[in-house]
């Protein structure tokens, strides 16, 4: 795994939902049939490309390095999908994740549900629903800079500014987040997982032991967004090694 993505066929389209649609990007290897699917959810206030193109880069590298289909999407209200940001909810975003899986994950091939930041919460909630419904495809969860906080409490007003007013969200969003138990959902799924995080991300580093006791963790010498080319190469290496081993184990 060189870290430099190779030939990839990238396809953009809309995934239709009963109440809206999600801009979706599908990466397939050019020369071989994909061995499985990785579906990736972005962070809150982010989009399919990720900060500085992180997710677009990771997708191309995983697609080429692991010979898998990688699917990314903008949740409703974010990026180029339908809807308004102030209307986002975890229920809708999880529904978006599941709709993208239904539309684009390969039948009878392994599925890895992945997410960056809050996207990890979506991936975890979605994978738990898939497993509960008896879907045999989910094989692992891939968390990137996602701590899956539980028991959080927010002191917010009716409309709460985020990052000094860059966005505003209603109180209902935060109350919904308080009610979620993504770590419990992760454990309930019974699936193995990998958490990759920046060692300089103080909040994540503090809770990394919880994940290390229950799954696999990799700390990379960087901040939360893997902001250097070396850090991005390390991120790709960690994710690709994990996914490749997973696919080999199943085959």
């Amino acid at each position: 795994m060189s870290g430099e993505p190779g030939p990839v066929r990238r396809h953009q389209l809309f995934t239709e939902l009963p109440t809206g649609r999600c801009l979706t990007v599908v990466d397939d290897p050019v020369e071989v049939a994909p061995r499985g699917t990785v579906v990736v959810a972005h962070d809150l206030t982010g989009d399919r490309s990720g900060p500085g193109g992180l997710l677009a880069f990771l997708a191309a590298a995983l697609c080429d390095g692991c010979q898998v289909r990688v699917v990314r999407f903008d949740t409703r209200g974010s990026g180029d999908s339908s809807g308004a940001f102030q209307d986002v909810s975890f229920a809708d975003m999880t529904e978006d994740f599941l709709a993208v899986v239904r539309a684009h994950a390969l039948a009878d091939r392994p599925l890895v549900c992945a997410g960056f930041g809050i996207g990890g919460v979506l991936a975890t909630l979605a994978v738990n629903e898939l497993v509960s419904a008896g879907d045999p495809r989910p094989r692992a969860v891939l968390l990137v800079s996602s701590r899956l906080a539980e028991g959080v409490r927010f002191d917010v007003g009716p409309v709460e500014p985020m990052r000094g007013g860059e966005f505003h969200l209603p109180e209902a969003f935060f109350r919904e987040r308080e009610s979620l138990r993504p770590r419990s959902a992760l454990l309930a799924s019974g699936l193995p997982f990998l958490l990759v995080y920046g060692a300089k991300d103080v909040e994540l580093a503090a809770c990394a032991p919880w994940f290390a006791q229950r799954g696999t963790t990799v700390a990379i010498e960087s901040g939360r967004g893997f902001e250097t080319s070396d850090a991005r190469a390390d991120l790709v290496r960690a994710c690709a090694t994990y996914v490749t081993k997973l696919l080999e184990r199943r085959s």
Partner: protein
Amino acid sequence: MTWDARPPLIPRLPFQTRVGLASTAGDHTLDRPLASSTVLLEQPIEPLLVELPPGRRDLHQCAGLPWLVMVHALGENRTGTNYWQAQAARIIAAADIVVARFDLSGHGESLAGMDVRTWLRQCVDAVTIARRHRARSVHMTARGLHAALLAGQDLDGVRIAVFPPRPDQLRWWSSVRDRVDSELLEVDFSPGGEERTFWEACGADTSRLRGFRVPVGVLRDLVTPFLEGSVAWTVAVTSSRESTGTLVCGGGPLTRLESERSGLAHLLREYLARVTARGNGGERS
């Protein structure tokens, strides 16, 4: 800032891109006045995302309407930082203007590298698509340093430079201009001083720029017209009135805040609606 002659993170050819069928299912938040539809159109380099005015279900129903082509800034994608272009597209489309956006090569979903000639071609391709769909006129916005791309376009509409840099904001360029064009600049820390001024004048958010890599030659192609005074646009959006041909939008060039983004979008919408009502507006260098 470090110098790096390694290949860019984003691979060069071979690559293939394609887009799905141009579905026109609507934005289902129909209770909102800005509800509109989007279509994805295949293009030779990167897909074109086109926002249709509310009530128009496909491009055939948009014949005779004005188009706006939006060119994003360095380091962002067609959605724009904090979704500013996506939000503006909806607001402007509500004024019966078709709005088209795309990822410049080397940005967003592009698998290719950064190249100014490719970017100029992408702009030309977008204008060609607009004319093919019988656009009444074609306008263009470009943010930050990418306002340099406006001068090379054959438009019958207005060219709007959104927070273009002033030459005095580009001083930091003199410290790197002697590097060879193929070298990559990588911003590996949060810059300060003249370097910070430079990047922000270019439209790049320095708080999110770490890891960003750009060839020196790309910067040279874009900075030089500003230093030589060979840039050209009809009107510029700036944070204060500097001359005629200026629209004023509060905040800074990065339009981070929701209120700034919304204000900018409505300002552009009002300007374009008025220009469309009286003709296409005059050109000014």
